[in-house]
């Protein structure tokens, strides 16, 4: 069985532009959290070669005047089903569940770069995403991978960058979930010492029919700092999660955390980043009675690193609207931009992505207006230095049905 090490697959799009492009005079939000300023960005090949004012260029450099339009790094979704689920309510179009594997379930090889959700989200400013398995009854759902959303069959991505899990209301007891999580993490620890073949004979492995991949993946959590996104909401459950983090020295990322404000000091002290949906203020369960639109502000004020999810499957770009709402309720603007870009890259070890810095891949979005306004839209989307087509199946349908020629729609193309 393959070792689940982090494999960085650097197969870049064929035909990267040899010439340079200068994005001139944009209002640059670098994604680093620093305030925006007017800057030029020089792109050479697939990377950002210079950021500054009045950059010197050669005659072969294509200049695009931005006239102060906002510029951000390409947005990165920390939790999506892009390329893994075409239609939620149609099982045969989904690859996010395994009937064999648990913690070791990797969706990487199921990724479909031709899923229509990819051009749609890309045209809305998303240039990369973590795609993840769906939740299951088991405390660890499996492994998510990172994908660059250029739609190429030469998939650019990073396999198995994160494990997902959950603590909360279930058919059993969360006490049992916690107990089981601990036992599984102990098993993972042992995989650093004993051969996995031996651990497969353990009572725990036999009881849950664990496979070698499951135990190896658990070992990545305990022995190799694999990021672990743990969805939980109730204040006391968050504290339980932080205890697990401490005990097993986990690279923990808390997701959802609707009751985080009640345990804000402990989250801060543990230096744990979070993924939130800033628009979800509904107490959907008895685990999240403390949900509020002020969650983002409270986390930001505490200096906790924040990323954004969205409830809307297929529209991961709507984290822009979510973060805009977080700003409306008091989060700082640059925290919001950082949360959709550099914080994601940092948290999931996505090298040279997520911010507009020299030497980074040129994943850049130029916006027609304030990117946190849901009414705004990209003017340019660049991935690995390549300008992307902003068309999508949706835009093609729009063209077809705003075409007033008198003929059947099937002939309007």
């Amino acid at each position, binding site marked *: 069985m393959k070792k689940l090490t982090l494999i960085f697959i650097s197969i870049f799009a064929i035909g990267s532009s040899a010439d340079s492009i200068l994005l001139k005079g944009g209002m640059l939000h670098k994604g680093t959290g620093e305030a925006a300023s007017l800057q030029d960005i020089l792109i050479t090949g697939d990377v950002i070669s210079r950021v500054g004012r009045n950059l010197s260029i050669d005659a072969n450099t294509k200049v695009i005047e931005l006239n102060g339009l906002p510029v951000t790094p390409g947005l990165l979704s920390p*939790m999506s089903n892009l390329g893994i689920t075409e239609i*939620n309510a149609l099982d045969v179009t989904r690859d996010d569940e395994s009937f064999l594997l648990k913690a070791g379930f990797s969706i990487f090889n199921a990724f479909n770069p031709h899923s229509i959700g990819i051009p749609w989200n890309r045209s809305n400013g998303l240039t990369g995403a973590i795609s993840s398995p769906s939740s299951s009854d088991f405390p660890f759902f499996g492994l998510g991978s990172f994908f660059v959303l250029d739609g190429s069959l030469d998939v650019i991505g990073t396999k198995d960058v994160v494990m997902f899990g959950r603590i909360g209301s279930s058919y059993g007891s969360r006490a049992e979930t916690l107990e089981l999580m601990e036992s599984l993490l102990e098993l993972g620890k042992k995989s650093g010492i004993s051969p996995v073949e031996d651990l497969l004979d353990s009572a725990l492995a036999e009881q849950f029919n664990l496979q070698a991949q499951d135990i190896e993946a658990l070992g990545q959590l305990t022995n190799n700092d694999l990021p672990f996104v743990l969805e939980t909401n109730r204040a006391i459950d968050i504290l339980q999660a932080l205890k697990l983090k401490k005990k097993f020295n986990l690279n923990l990322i808390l997701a959802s955390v609707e009751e985080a404000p009640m345990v804000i000091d402990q989250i801060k002290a543990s230096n744990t980043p979070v993924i939130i949906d800033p628009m979800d203020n509904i107490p959907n369960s008895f685990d999240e009675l403390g949900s509020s639109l002020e969650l983002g502000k409270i986390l930001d004020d505490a200096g906790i690193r924040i990323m954004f999810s969205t409830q809307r*499957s*297929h529209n991961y770009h709507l984290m822009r609207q979510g973060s805009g709402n977080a700003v409306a309720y008091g989060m700082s603007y640059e925290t919001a931009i950082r949360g959709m870009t550099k914080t994601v890259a940092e948290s999931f070890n996505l090298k040279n992505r997520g911010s507009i810095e020299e030497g980074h891949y040129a994943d850049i979005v130029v916006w027609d207006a304030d990117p946190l306004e*849901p009414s705004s839209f990209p003017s340019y989307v660049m991935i690995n230095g390549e300008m992307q087509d902003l068309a999508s199946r949706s*835009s093609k349908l729009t063209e077809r049905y705003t075409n007033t020629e008198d003929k059947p729609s099937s002939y309007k193309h």
Partner: protein
Amino acid sequence: MKHFAPLLIFIFFIASCTDTNMPDEAGLKNTDQSIAFKSTYKPMASESVLFKNANFYDGLGGEFLNYDLLVSDGKISEFRQGIVAEGVKIIDASDKWMSPGIIDIHSHMGVYSAPGVSTSSDGNEATSPVTAEVWAEHSVWTQDPQFALALKGGVTAFHVLPGSANLFGGRGTTFKNVSQNTIQAMKFPGAPHSLKMACGENPKRVYGRKGQSPATRMGNMAGYRAAWINGAEYQKGMNEDDKNDRPTRDLAMDTLKGVLDGEILIQNHCYRAEEMAMMVELSKEFNYKITAFHHAVEAYKIADLLADEGICAAMWADWWGFKHEAYDMVQANIAIIDQARNGTGCAIVHSDDAVGIQHLNQEASKALAAGNRAGFTISKAHAMRWITSNPAKAAGVLDQTGSIEIGKDADLVVWTGDPFSVYSRAEQVFVDGALAFDLNDPKVQPITDFDLGIIQPQTNRVQ
């Protein structure tokens, strides 16, 4: 993590039985809300208020800068520049924007209350494909914390529908967004009921799995037609002069008869273009009117037909992909419906969602921008119709609310800024002239019984 599909599809029948003039001996009078289940709504106490120097979207397409608005006895009594009034409360609304209260034509608040647990799952009587006899209002939980959250988003009235599991899901009811302990006290006075019908995947999935009809879209159609045949016979029978010739009273048939009599409005969950067109044919076969298609992800494909038939489409700005019939989403859907037949289309932004209902202004903003990107020229003032007067029309309450006009209910929102900006919030929300929510005054922020002391005895759920 599983990315749950949004609440899949809810279909309601809303039947409005107010003000029927059926003779007592027809035996129908007790289906009529004039006898039972009638609205006991009373506006909260209010004083006369004069808003000075605000900018207004009137909900009918108009934009008025530096205008004044006077509210007396809960009604809009004057709307012009330079109003002078004595002995009234004056609110300086300089540089603020005001709009009519936001209205959602598609809500399941109260029938799918929060927390979303099995004991509060009261929106789909998914036991038979035809349940025209049930009324969503009979499921509503008055302490649903979602009502107060919607109020914070500027929502002053909403239409609660049953879900969409059934061909005929039951009646829907319009409510004022006021906190009361009985359903009757929240019911919008004089508002008609609706009847929810549902096309497509949901009914055929729910019943097909049980091995019964409908299991296909053609089965759906057969199911509607069979029911309407019964409804038409029942209507005819109830109109017999000799009461001995009349059929025994039947709740489901009462609802269908109400539709055929024009008293109950059809709210029809339907995604695909050809299915909506088929439902139009069905309405002609049985001589009833469809008020609005809901969700209508493919409405843009038949925009002219809907405009010609005078049928509204209530849509999301951008939901898609959670089911097959929601695959062909275009963000310009709302604008295309709006602009059909020289701008005579009736477009509505709906939520079907407890988060979405709090931000209908943002959803309208996305739809507006997408429409203008698609080549239309639509103003913000015009787009305000999509979340005010058009849903009021579809709920049958446009005479009372949904626009800023003299004599209408003073259902109003004062926004902190441009209502179409993500950064703007409802600062004050008035229902019938009474201040129901004030962003800056915790005493004027409703806290339901559910919210009260639930986190700690001294800590309410909504701070």
